[in-house]
């Protein structure tokens, strides 16, 4: 291997090793440590000056205490379960909103499509935080939605939506919608319309042609979109923190509070390790799905 090739591969490789892989090793190590009133607030810390004996002493002090703690305190496993529930339900809701939109876009006259596409992408470039924040002014007790509904006479007193799980669902569907629309749109746009005509010629009704031809062919896009919503939603922090209530339990929020409010680094690390373990399976499935699509295109 020549020097130049070594440099080209070496620079990004070293960067990712140092700033992506090594930090995970540290997280795992700290999740096995004990909290301590010190800087940094955990023990043991690794002293390389201690030599082999020091290393041995270091490893002997690591244990699974924090993980035992996580299984004993119901707060944590309820938080994991409730994150899974919220992420799954909001993924399905996003799909329900995104599919008709992607379908409409793919059926729109060709000269509209670029504009429609831009309208989907524009929110993606706008600050995530601001898009979440914009719902605070709408869903609040004196917010825009209640104002309209009261004015129309649909309700007599303001609805409580902000700081409930409903607001979290709305927030996730809203912010992740483009991630669901884009992959579905790209499979629907590629779909050969003559297949549907063929199905109709062979006696299918419109509806059954839709369910028998369009839906099966859009599966790769739907799967990709679902992963793109589900995986980040599971560890979401901003949405439950701004739109959710005190009873909205999501693991990203628990980790944040464990770290910033309780200053318990070892437990925060253990929470992160388990979240990662839960995410590994969907992440691998997602990469497989992407790989399959890539191969299908070629």
């Amino acid at each position, binding site marked *: 291997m020549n020097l130049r090739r070594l440099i080209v591969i070496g620079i*990004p490789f070293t960067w990712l090793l140092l700033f992506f892989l090594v*930090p995970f090793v540290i997280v795992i190590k700290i999740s096995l440590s004990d909290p301590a009133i010190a800087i940094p607030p955990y023990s043991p810390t690794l002293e390389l000056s201690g030599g082999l004996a020091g290393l041995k002493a270091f490893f002997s002090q690591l244990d699974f205490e924090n993980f035992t703690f996580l299984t004993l305190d119901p707060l944590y496993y309820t938080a994991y379960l409730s994150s899974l529930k919220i992420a799954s339900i909001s993924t399905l809701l996003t799909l329900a909103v995104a599919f008709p939109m992607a379908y409409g876009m793919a*059926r729109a006259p060709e000269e509209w499509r670029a504009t429609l596409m*831009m309208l989907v992408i524009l929110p993606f*470039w706008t*600050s995530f*935080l601001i*898009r979440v*924040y914009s719902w605070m002014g709408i869903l609040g007790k004196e917010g825009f939605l209640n104002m309209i509904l009261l004015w129309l006479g649909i309700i007599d007193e303001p609805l409580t939506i902000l700081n409930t799980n409903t607001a979290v669902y709305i927030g996730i569907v809203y912010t992740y919608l483009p991630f669901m629309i884009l992959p579905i749109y790209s499979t629907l746009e590629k779909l050969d319309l003559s297949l549907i005509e063929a199905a109709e010629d062979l006696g299918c009704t419109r509806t059954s042609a839709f369910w028998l031809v369009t839906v099966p062919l859009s599966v790769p896009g739907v799967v990709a979109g679902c992963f793109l919503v589900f995986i980040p939603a599971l560890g979401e922090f901003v949405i439950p923190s701004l739109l959710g209530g005190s009873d909205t339990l999501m693991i*990203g929020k628990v980790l944040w509070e464990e770290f910033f409010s309780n200053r318990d680094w070892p437990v925060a690390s253990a929470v992160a390790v388990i979240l990662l373990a839960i995410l590994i399976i969907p992440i691998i499935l997602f990469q497989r799905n992407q790989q399959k699509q890539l191969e299908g295109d070629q």
Partner: protein
Amino acid sequence: MKKLSWFNLTTLTLGFAFLYIPMIVLIVYSFNGGRLVTVWAGFSTKWYGTLFHNEAFLDAAWVTIRVAVATATLATILGTLAGYVLVRGGRFWGRTLFSGMAYAPLVMPDVILGLSLLLLFKVMFGSMGMTTIILAHTTFAMCYVSVVVSSRLLSFDKSLEEAASDLGATPFDTFMSVTLPIIFPAVLSGWLLAFTLSLDDLVIASFVTGPGATTLPIKIYSAVRLGVSPEINALSTIMIGIVTVGVLTASLLNKRKVVQRLKDEKAAN
């Protein structure tokens, strides 16, 4: 040309209303004269005035822009290299590990990235500040750049590079005079993507920030945690305005290019 059915037209209208009404409401209320966000007290631009006299916000904006420019530049260099290695790198030791590491940050929750980087920086530097935010942002932004660049590299004709090297160009010359000009649009959009990602990040920056390095999202988050604020509405309106102008310009330029290309193709036929 087939027209849209009623059903499709309705879903598209409702869908785009859902996407845009929150932002429109936000913009309208940023021009509200009263402090109460829900009661319309006449048109006024006073919140923009208070915003521009708020030192804390201006400082945070300046920090954020410097971090975003540094991040975007570093991430573009590293991400372009990574994308190149992924597509043209051939076989080398640790390739699977490398591609895994290049994709994983795309889907990794921010809380995990933030926590793990903070723990690393505590060991490495001890103290935090703008540098640690830049390093952290570069790490996840380079992966987005690498995806954009590698998809462009996959789609262009490899024989152009082969021709250059057949004609005696060194790999470096080939990269500089053939590959880079072709992938340049992707590199540019990678830079913009990295810039926006850095500008937007709250969670990772909160973990790895230090004294004197408060970014705009951190500032916004601490201001809105307790409720809606008219100053933040004004700030959001400015940010939405900048993005809208940027995206519109980019898509108009792109449209012009497409139209030009179609014309050229017609002329060639």
